[in-house]
Each structure stands twice: as structure tokens, then as C-alpha cells.
């Protein structure tokens, strides 16, 4: 994926070309380091299944690789799974984390090799082939430890495909790790504002732009252990309070967008992968919504969107639009920047005609 150095990227392509799959792949990597209460697991069988092997080929390893620049240091994490004959689930073939060109740890099968760091010498140990080592390995320090920095970044990637109808606004816990469908919006809202209360200013600013009669969001107790978000609106005609769950689907997406902007300001830079951010929005809102996200990530982090919506597609340029394409389900996806593809006339028109091909 040629997305390095780009603050925002749009993925376009036909249905089945693999746009959402990129989010799913990121989700698998993220699941390795997430809190088990938020769906995290390092058990290989819970991350990938034999049916995930491309065309059922058991003789070829399944490999995931990610590279990220954090604070000027390049982190590279790679993991490969294999499915030996006679086994019931996949297991780890290789795994490594490299920071700034120096290995933090490498692994082959069960054997993990920890590199020398500072006064700590090299170390080797063995772990279950069916467990990923990343969440288990602990560095010598904490906040400056490359392992901690990378794991925290990976756990905090926002992979979003909101289902507004399922978002109720209940808040029983605090988290910076919202789920894919953002059904834990209330927990995420609390998780951002508890350590970063000033983030509310960003939420307030954005929501007042998109809903001029928005006054505030509150979190009153609904019983002794839980709270639920309510939204207050006011104008010259008076004021009213609505439970968060009663907002429209599009309004809930505005609230999610506000929280994404606030999160990137408060504890970013983060990566946000939003699968079809234009869903549920009025046509007149789509462009503004996308531009707000693109602008917010210009100062840090990375925003990756997928879309079929003309209004969303028009808000990106050829340099930051990638076309995903494949000839059939039997062939791999090809990724090409739009700037390398010949498109005649208006891009949206060419997409409607099906004329955009690598």
C-alpha cells in the first residue's frame, strides 16, 4: 500500500476489490495487542482461521507486515502463520519487531530471541507456537520502550465502520479502543474526556458547526453503575434534551467524527481507517465531513477512507487516491495511485462508466 507520507488517503475500487479487507487486516494486527475486554487476543486460532488462507493453499504462509514512523523512528512488525499438515489451527512461523533498524525481538517457530538493549543482555525463550509473542514480550523500561510505543499505537488505531442504529450512548467503562461498529461510543467518549478533558472543546466546536443549535453533551447517571449520554439543543425558541440513542444516524456519525478529531488532537497522532465515512450523511454534508477529517489529520496521524460516494471521492486528489482492482476472485488485488492511471475527463464520470482500470 503506497500510503507512506500521506496525511489522508482514499481507497476506491469495485465491490470485492479488497478495500474493506485492508481494514480487516489492520484489525487482525490490532487484535493482537488490544485489551482482551475489547476483543483482543494473541491466540492464533482466534485471529486467523484455515479458511482465511488464500484459495485454501496450505503450503504458503499467511503473512502480515506493517511499517510506521513514530516520532521519527521507523517501526516494522511482521508475522507469518503456517498451517502444517495434520494441524487443526494455524501457528506462528515467524515474527519480528524492528525499531529504527534494530531488532527488538525476532522469532522463529517457538523460539523468541530478545535483542540486547542498554544494560540488558540478549535473551532467548520459547513460547507456545499458537500464541503471538508481541503482547507477551516486555521491554526493560515502560514509556520509552519501543515495544510499549508500538503496541500502544497499534491498539489505538481507529478502525471504524459505524452502525449508528446500534449506538445507544451508554457508558459503563472508559476506553480509547472503540470497536469497529462504535457501539461503545459512550465508553470511548468517557475514555477520551477522562484523561484529556480539554478535548471537549474540539468536540463542542465541531458539533456546533454541523448542528448550530447543539448546546452540550452530558452524561447523567442512569443507575448506580452506569451513565448514558444525553444531548442538549437550544435556540431562541427554547431548549430540549435528547438521549444520544435518539439522535439520527447521521447525527451520531457527526458525534463520531467529533470524537475522532478530538482523539487525534488529544492523544494522537493516530491512524483512522473509516470504511465509507459518507454513509448515513446528507449529500450536502458529505464533502464537509471528509474535508474536516482530511484537514484534521494534516497536522499528524493518517486518515484512510474507502468510498463509492461521488461527493466523498471528489474531495481527494489523484495523489492521495488509490485504486484497488482485481480481474477476478482468483487473482490478487492490484493497488495503483490514481496519478499513475490514465483517466479521461471527470473521475466520477469515468468511475460510473467503469473506465478506471490500472
Amino acid at each position, binding site marked *: 500500500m503506497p500510503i507512506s507520507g500521506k496525511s489522508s488517503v482514499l481507497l476506491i475500487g469495485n465491490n470485492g476489490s479488497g478495500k474493506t479487507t485492508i481494514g480487516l487486516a489492520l484489525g487482525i494486527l490490532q487484535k493482537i495487542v488490544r485489551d482482551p475486554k475489547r476483543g483482543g487476543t494473541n491466540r492464533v486460532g482466534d485471529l486467523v482461521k484455515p479458511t482465511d488462507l488464500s484459495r485454501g493453499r496450505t503450503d504458503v504462509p499467511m503473512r502480515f507486515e506493517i511499517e510506521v514512523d513514530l516520532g521519527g523512528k521507523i517501526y516494522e512488525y511482521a508475522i507469518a502463520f503456517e498451517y502444517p499438515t495434520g494441524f487443526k489451527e494455524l501457528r506462528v512461523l515467524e515474527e519480528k519487531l524492528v525499531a529504527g533498524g534494530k531488532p527488538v525481538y525476532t522469532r522463529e517457530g517457538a523460539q523468541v530471541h530478545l535483542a540486547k538493549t542498554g544494560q540488558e543482555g540478549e535473551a532467548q525463550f520459547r513460547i507456545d507456537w499458537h500464541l503471538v509473542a508481541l503482547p507477551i514480550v516486555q521491554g526493560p523500561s515502560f514509556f520509552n520502550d519501543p515495544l510499549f510505543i508500538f503496541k500502544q499505537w497499534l491498539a489505538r488505531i481507529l478502525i471504524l465502520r459505524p452502525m449508528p442504529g446500534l449506538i445507544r450512548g451508554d457508558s459503563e467503562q472508559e476506553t480509547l479502543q472503540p470497536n469497529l461498529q462504535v457501539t461503545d461510543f459512550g465508553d470511548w467518549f468517557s475514555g477520551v474526556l477522562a484523561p484529556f478533558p480539554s478535548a471537549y472543546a474540539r468536540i463542542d466546536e465541531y458539533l456546533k458547526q454541523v448542528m448550530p443549535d447543539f448546546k452540550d453533551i452530558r452524561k447523567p447517571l442512569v443507575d448506580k453503575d452506569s451513565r448514558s449520554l444525553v444531548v442538549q439543543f437550544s435556540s431562541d425558541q427554547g431548549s430540549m434534551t435528547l438521549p444520544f440513542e435518539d439522535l439520527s444516524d447521521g447525527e451520531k456519525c457527526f458525534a463520531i467524527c467529533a470524537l475522532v478529531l478530538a482523539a487525534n488532537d488529544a492523544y494522537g497522532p493516530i491512524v483512522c481507517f473509516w470504511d465509507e465515512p459518507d454513509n448515513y450523511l*446528507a449529500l450536502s454534508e458529505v464533502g464537509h465531513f471528509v474535508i474536516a477529517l482530511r484537514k484534521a489529520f494534516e497536522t499528524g496521524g493518517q486518515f484512510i477512507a474507502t468510498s463509492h460516494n461521488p461527493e466523498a471521492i471528489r*474531495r481527494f486528489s489523484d495523489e492521495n487516491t488509490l485504486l484497488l482492482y482485481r480481474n477476478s476472485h482468483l487473482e490478487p488485488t492490484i493497488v495503483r495511485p490514481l496519478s499513475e492511471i490514465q483517466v479521461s475527463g471527470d473521475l466520477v464520470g469515468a468511475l460510473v462508466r467503469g473506465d478506471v482500470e490500472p
Partner: protein
Amino acid sequence: MSVNKFLPHVFVLPEDDANRQLANGFHLQIASNLQRQMQVLPVAGGWVDVLNLFESEHVAEMDRWNRRFMVADRL
């Protein structure tokens, strides 16, 4: 709310796809609190089409919304 039509706002009517991308670049440079006062419209598809669209749609709307400004760009 889309663009607040009671405040000064500008619509950009790009002649072609290259102009649309230029306009997007300008749009991203606007301060966040003013961003919604600009909108890049769909590509007209040629300078003659820009003029035709301007005459058939936008002149009347500009009379109706007197705080609207139009930029019809051409390289």
C-alpha cells in the same frame, strides 16, 4: 446544516478535474471554523459548460442568496 447561506459563502465551479483538485487544495487551507463556508461543486466539464451552468442555475440562486460568491475557475 450544510453551508450557512446567511453568512458569506463561496462556491467553486471547476471547469475540469484538474481545477477541482486545485480547489480542494485551497479548501484544505481554510481555517476549520470557516471551512463550511466554501464548497467545491461537481466538475462542469468544459468552459462553455461552466458558463451555461452559471447562467442556468447559479445566477438565479445568487439573486436569492445575496451573500453567495461564485468562483468559476479556468487554468
